[in-house]
């Protein structure tokens, strides 16, 4: 087997691959879900676009199946939880992609019935003072307006952060190629060493 007489060709191939990586997209399935009022709005997506008609199952504590739904044409779904507990959303496509996302009980609306011992933490989007039973109707209305306004502003940010975490970076590509070159070099050294011993 002749040696690689023109390493410049291999380098050129690698360079083209790197450039191609810069303009291409990631491919794993991702899922993001956040409360919207009493319901939970979620989206299932590939980095290249929304994932339509994907089955989503919801599991509660002890892996009990609480419900199922399907993502729509835009990859989103709306689902109302029956109780206030930690919810694990699992999306699976036909061809073997899978994604999970956990919505903690503290994020959910306090109007939902509680389920078992739940650690009561102040919800991040809700005001610190809890709703008083004898509060005036205007106060209650104002509080709900504030909650929904803050939620409307914050949830897109959370979705963006989630998508950012799953994005493929050039440094990941370079890291992978670096490992491949390193392993190939080590393997070549070992093989050459063994061949040198044999002759």
């Amino acid at each position, binding site marked *: *087997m*002749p*040696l*690689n007489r023109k*390493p410049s*060709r*291999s380098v050129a*191939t*690698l360079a083209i*691959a*790197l450039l*191609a*990586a810069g303009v*291409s*997209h*990631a*491919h*794993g*399935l991702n899922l993001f879900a956040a409360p919207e009022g009493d319901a939970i709005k979620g989206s299932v997506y*590939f980095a*290249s*676009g929304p*994932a*339509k*008609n994907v089955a989503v199952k919801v599991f509660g504590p002890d892996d009990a199946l609480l419900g199922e739904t399907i993502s729509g044409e835009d990859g989103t779904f709306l689902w109302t939880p029956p109780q206030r507990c930690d919810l694990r959303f699992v999306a*699976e*496509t*036909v*061809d*073997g*992609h*899978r*994604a999970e996302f956990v919505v903690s009980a503290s994020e959910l609306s306090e109007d939902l019935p509680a389920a078992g011992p739940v650690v009561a933490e102040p919800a991040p989007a809700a005001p610190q003072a809890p709703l008083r039973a004898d509060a005036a109707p205007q106060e209650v209305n104002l509080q709900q307006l504030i909650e929904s306004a803050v939620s409307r502003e914050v949830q897109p940010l959370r979705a963006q952060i989630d998508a950012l975490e*799953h994005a*493929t970076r050039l440094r*990941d*590509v370079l*890291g*992978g*190629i670096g*490992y*491949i*070159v390193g*392993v*190939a*070099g080590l*393997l*070549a*050294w070992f*093989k*050459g060493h063994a*061949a040198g011993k044999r002759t």
Partner: protein
Amino acid sequence: MHIAEGIIPGPVLGAGALLAAAGVAAGLRKLDEDRMAPVAVLSSTLFVASLIHVPVGPAAAHLVLNGLAGLILGWAVFPSFLVALLLQAVFFGYGGLTTLGLNTLNMALPGVVCYYLFNHPLMGSSGRKTFVLGFAAGAMSIALSCAMLCASLLTAGRELLVLAQGVFLAHIPLMILEGLVTGSAVVFLRRVRPEVFAHSTDAAKPLELDTRDAFEQKA
């Protein structure tokens, strides 16, 4: 094409891992140190290829290039895919670590099949026939990988009809695209660097070493 974690039952993953390990061992045994440059370049290409997505029906598929890799590397396509898939799982989160063996088997074995089917006729071909053989290798490797993917998902309880429609039929555009890519690549390589393809005499190499050792022992 990558199977994610948590779908396939354990025994199937174990069997897939064992078969993939056997394939990787065979590939490493047949690997020469002066073949390392093509192997490294192809591993890098396989690693990056799945970033190039192709809109396929409702979802998106990605280039696999196992046919081309099989034609060039022969059995060495097994360790090549193992490394590429491991790094994809670690860096990109595609597939998984428990599914590494099964994914390697599903992608590398069709490459080896295409090597045995097409490598020899490819070496003696020219012009249009080269492209046709390359196209056939590219399309067939995707078809075989799809079939193995469907078989794997069947063990997870999916229905055959749903799989046939949702997976196999959906990948037909990818089969055509990979056929075109492989055909063009093969024509180009045959013209420019024909020595990059694994020759069928690679299978004879262990035999040559054995006879030489036997000869040295006699002397």
